[in-house]
């Protein structure tokens, strides 16, 4: 299976925002691959470029965004050069996306069934008479009780967890090959979080769908992902199978990220915050390694361009002084 070309393949992807206060170098040399049926976690702290990357892949970036280089191939389509019409046809049908804050992510004044029907009408040849049935079926698939009645509900009449189920129904209505889930459980209570994550995993298994799961919650990613890609300040710093990453993180940032994640068996004293902040991405003279100012292992060698990441499924790290792979093993 690993020999097949990946479903989504991003190589050397760069993106910047031209703003009034300067150019923000949001993404630089990003490599990412997602295979069919695989769940890949994209983790990193706020501002590391996870969401920016996913919006860029779908072509729904902010107007100020400019792709500065690299490729992003999805199936046979080169996303960075595709026309708006091609992208519109892919979005929602081949690549779907769900967001955080499901209550605000749905149109507040349109019935949820109608919103699902809008997507079906756009991407399928279903006749008008079938649309309602298919929307109800989509609601039933995400375990919404009494889907016939919920079809006519407005988002404000549903709970947050129920809205997220509607979002998932909307995203999966056309059986996409790839689901990008951008912090899908942020803003939901813990039991609902687990239910939503299980639902996404179950739908992925049932349809053979690949999932790119964006989160800042390393523990959640560890639980649900086959592989994890760690981002820091617009760079991918490490990519590895989940077990290998937790057993022996090689990038100093990943190691600190893991130490900053609470675990059931450790005390609060064992939690270590990562010193410093993300560098200002508006700087013209960003260092080759954007973690350098926060890193205890930095040396003069870190001024050289970062080593390219090894292709998956290897344990890849973009660092001149990686931690020993066997350290924790």
């Amino acid at each position, binding site marked *: 299976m690993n020999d097949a070309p990946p479903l989504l393949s991003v190589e050397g992807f760069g993106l910047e925002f031209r703003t009034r206060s300067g150019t923000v170098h949001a993404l630089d040399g990003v490599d990412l691959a997602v295979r069919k049926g695989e769940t890949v976690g994209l983790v990193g702290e706020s501002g590391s470029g996870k969401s920016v990357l996913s919006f860029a892949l779908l072509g729904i970036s902010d107007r100020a965004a400019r792709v500065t280089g690299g490729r992003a191939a999805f199936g046979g389509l080169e996303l960075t050069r595709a026309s708006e019409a091609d992208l519109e046809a892919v979005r*929602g049908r081949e690549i779907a996306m769900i967001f955080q804050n499901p209550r605000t*992510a*749905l149109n507040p004044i349109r019935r949820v069934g109608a919103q699902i029907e*809008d997507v079906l009408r756009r991407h399928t040849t279903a006749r008008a008479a079938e649309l309602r049935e298919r929307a109800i079926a989509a609601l039933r698939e995400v375990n919404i009780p009494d889907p016939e009645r919920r079809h006519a509900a407005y988002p404000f009449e549903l709970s947050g967890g129920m809205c997220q189920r509607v979002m998932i129904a909307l995203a999966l209505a056309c059986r996409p090959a790839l689901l990008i889930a951008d912090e899908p459980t942020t803003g939901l209570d813990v039991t609902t979080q687990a239910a939503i994550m299980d639902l996404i995993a179950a739908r992925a298994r049932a349809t053979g769908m690949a999932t790119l799961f964006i989160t800042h919650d390393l523990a959640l990613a560890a639980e649900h992902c086959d592989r994890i890609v760690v981002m820091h300040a617009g760079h991918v710093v490490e990519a590895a199978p989940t077990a290998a990453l937790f057993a022996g993180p090689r990038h100093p940032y990943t190691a600190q990220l893991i130490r900053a994640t609470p675990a059931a068996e450790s005390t609060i004293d064992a939690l270590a915050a990562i010193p410093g902040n993300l560098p200002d991405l508006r700087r013209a003279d960003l260092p080759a390694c954007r973690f350098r100012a926060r890193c205890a292992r930095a040396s003069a060698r870190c001024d050289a361009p970062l080593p390219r990441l090894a292709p998956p499924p290897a344990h890849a790290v973009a660092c001149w002084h990686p931690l020993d792979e066997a350290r924790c093993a």
Partner: protein
Amino acid sequence: MIRIVALRLVGALPNLAGVVVVTFLLTRALPGDPAAFFAGAAASAEAVEQIREKLGLNRNLVEQFGLYLRDLARGDFGQSLSTGQPVLTELVSRLPASLELTFCALVFATVVALPLGVAAARRPGSWIDHLCRLVTTAGVSLPTFFTGLLLAYVFYFLLGVAPSPLGRLDPVFTPPPPVTRMYLIDSLLAGEGTVFRACLAQIALPAVTMGLFVLAPLARMTRASMLGVLSSDFIRTARAAGLASPTVLYTYAFRNALLPVVTTLGMVFSFLLGSNVLVEKVFAWPGIGSYAIESLTASDYAPIQGFVLAMGVLYVLLNLAIDLLYGLIDPRVRLEA
């Protein structure tokens, strides 16, 4: 629905009672003596006193108010001293003229302002955005009497494409049989195409003059509201779902952006109705604004009271209509009586 409307109307009665009391007191507090004004400059003191007695102005306030209420209950709004006409007759003929003009102005403003605001919000900083800014700035800064005169000068005097700016209908035509007393509607009801076209030509310039003035707040509100909605989460969802751009723009964004626009529409409507005196003067439009101003300068109590009461009723109806419209646009608005 009908029950809600009925309850709302009943609920508005205290407001209207307040309007009756306050306008009565305010008109009595106005400077100037209507009896002296009515009698003329040459009249003797006895003559003025006689008129005062005839008008009931020598009685105390409570008695006067009682008489006013009694007349109101009979549907008698009193008589204008300056024209000698019953106030009700004047209101019935002049209010539709003002309403017609205001409606036309609003239609013009809406048809121009909403697309302009939407287009400006889609591409901030583009030429259409700058055009929108130019139009809104010009709209608020040019006084209506100036734009009115300018339009009359250009389109009537220079180009000769507009009829003479004198009233609602060229005297060569007979006004259509009164049903709503709005000439445009009445002429259509009567099937008189030529009269309709003549009315339309007559109303075009004053309506555009007024419309230009209210275009600014409407376009500005549409732009701001659309900008806000276009950057909201659910628009991102709609785009991520691959919905076609027109669907995203109109079905998703525009309907959500409409609420503040409707509020603005209601505000400018009520503003226009009472304060379009300048436009009515420039175009000799026999509307209610000029009637009120003339009565005010003549200390003519009855028309002022009638005018304010009519406006009060209109405001109540307008607010009700806007609330109903809210309920249609936004399901989160639950109408309560």
